[in-house]
């Protein structure tokens, strides 16, 4: 038997959640399919006017990413809460925040990263230029982890409540508005010929800020929910 360091505890938690997701693949696919479908609905509804679609694209992709990530939030802690493994996690002798951070990282890899990878294909659907697609990917790559981090806080707070699924969206969506503004703003600024760096920098600062606070706050919220 060996005492585990904090980093290996983080690794254990990430591997555990990825392994669980591998055994239950349908859950991962639902939010991805949802994302693709919502984005594809807009050209069908608005019509095939290229200029309009190009203008709409960043906003549509970002709003859909936001909604898709809301869809998977309910799963972040709920299963662990139901079968009692969350109790054991909170009894861990080392920092619970690290374990919660591990869960958030795994959640992002399962719900955020697939969106980033599929986004270029959806960008082509909206006739976006190569440069704007690149900025879209970068903005999603920085922005989706923030959605998972803030979402973890909401999911932890509403754990075990009836109708928690709707409540978590109401709680988290307003907090995600800055991410939406700067994420979509980065892409829009590139299409209108301005540099995206300021928007991306602001997005990055949101990521750092939420990295710093949300794992700890979520761990405290989980403690409150367990009482």
């Amino acid at each position, binding site marked *: *038997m*060996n*005492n*585990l360091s904090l980093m*290996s*505890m983080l690794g*254990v*938690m990430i591997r*555990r959640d990825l*392994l*669980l997701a591998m*055994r*239950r693949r349908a859950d991962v696919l639902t939010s991805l399919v949802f994302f693709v479908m919502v984005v594809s609905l807009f050209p069908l509804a608005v019509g095939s006017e290229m200029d309009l679609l190009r203008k709409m694209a960043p906003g549509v992709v970002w709003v859909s990413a936001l909604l898709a990530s809301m869809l998977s939030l309910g799963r972040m802690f709920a299963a662990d809460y*139901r*079968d*009692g*493994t969350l*109790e*054991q*996690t*909170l*009894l*861990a*002798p*080392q*920092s619970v925040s690290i*374990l919660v951070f591990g869960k958030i990282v795994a959640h992002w890899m399962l719900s955020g990263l697939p969106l980033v990878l599929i986004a270029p294909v959806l960008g082509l659907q909206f006739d976006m230029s190569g440069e704007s697609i690149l900025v879209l990917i970068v903005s999603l790559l920085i922005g989706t982890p923030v959605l998972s981090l803030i979402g973890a806080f909401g999911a932890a707070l509403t754990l075990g409540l009836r109708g928690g699924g709707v409540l978590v969206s109401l709680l988290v969506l307003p907090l995600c508005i800055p991410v939406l503004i700067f994420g979509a703003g980065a892409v829009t600024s590139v299409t209108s010929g301005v540099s995206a760096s300021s928007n991306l920098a602001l997005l990055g600062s949101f990521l750092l800020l939420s990295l710093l606070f949300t794992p700890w706050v979520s761990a405290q919220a989980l403690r409150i929910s*367990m*009482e």
Partner: protein
Amino acid sequence: MFIYLLIIVSFFYYRCLYPMLEVKDLCCARGEQQLFSGLNFTVSGGEIIQVQGKNGSGKTTLLRTLCGFSIPVKGEVIWNGSAIHEIDDEFHSDIVYLGHLNAIKEELSALENLRISSAISGWSISDNDALGALSRIGLQGRETFPVRVLSQGQRRRVALARLLVSKASLWILDEPLTALDVGAVELVQSMIKLHLSNNGMVVFTTHQTLDISGVEIRCLALS
């Protein structure tokens, strides 16, 4: 001067050798309803306490308060001289809690469950250690099946295997015998006996009778 030093050193030595759980003037409530109040007891190395009471008398709440999940209305739980909320990390490495829920993942095998849960409790155990514990608990040949296909009693055994690989000195067991057959109940009794002889402590609830030869079970009745 030297004698004072000796007394202090021997005091700490004693405390390390004989860990102790103290409950002082504990009062717990669920919602508005007060469950019990003025509860005092201590558990030291080698002792076992059975919490007794009717359904709804607060047995589970008491055990969850001992773990630090529920905050008591009044009073405190003290581990080796410090209140448990002040020494979270140290305290958590000294206890193992088995609740109503088995805390196992249905998608994973018994082996994976045991290895992951002990890693989350801060200990990495080898495959051999885990397999040894699982065969002792009577799951030989079923270690790699997904827990989904196991029966309720076998799932409880997977949860009980955590006790075998843990180094914690305080076991907090909430209805450990649910769904277990006669053989498994005897196994749990022998596990408890071994743990007590290693200077461990057990606080548990059960509606069945636990009969361990040579061990005196203290009863704590919640009214």
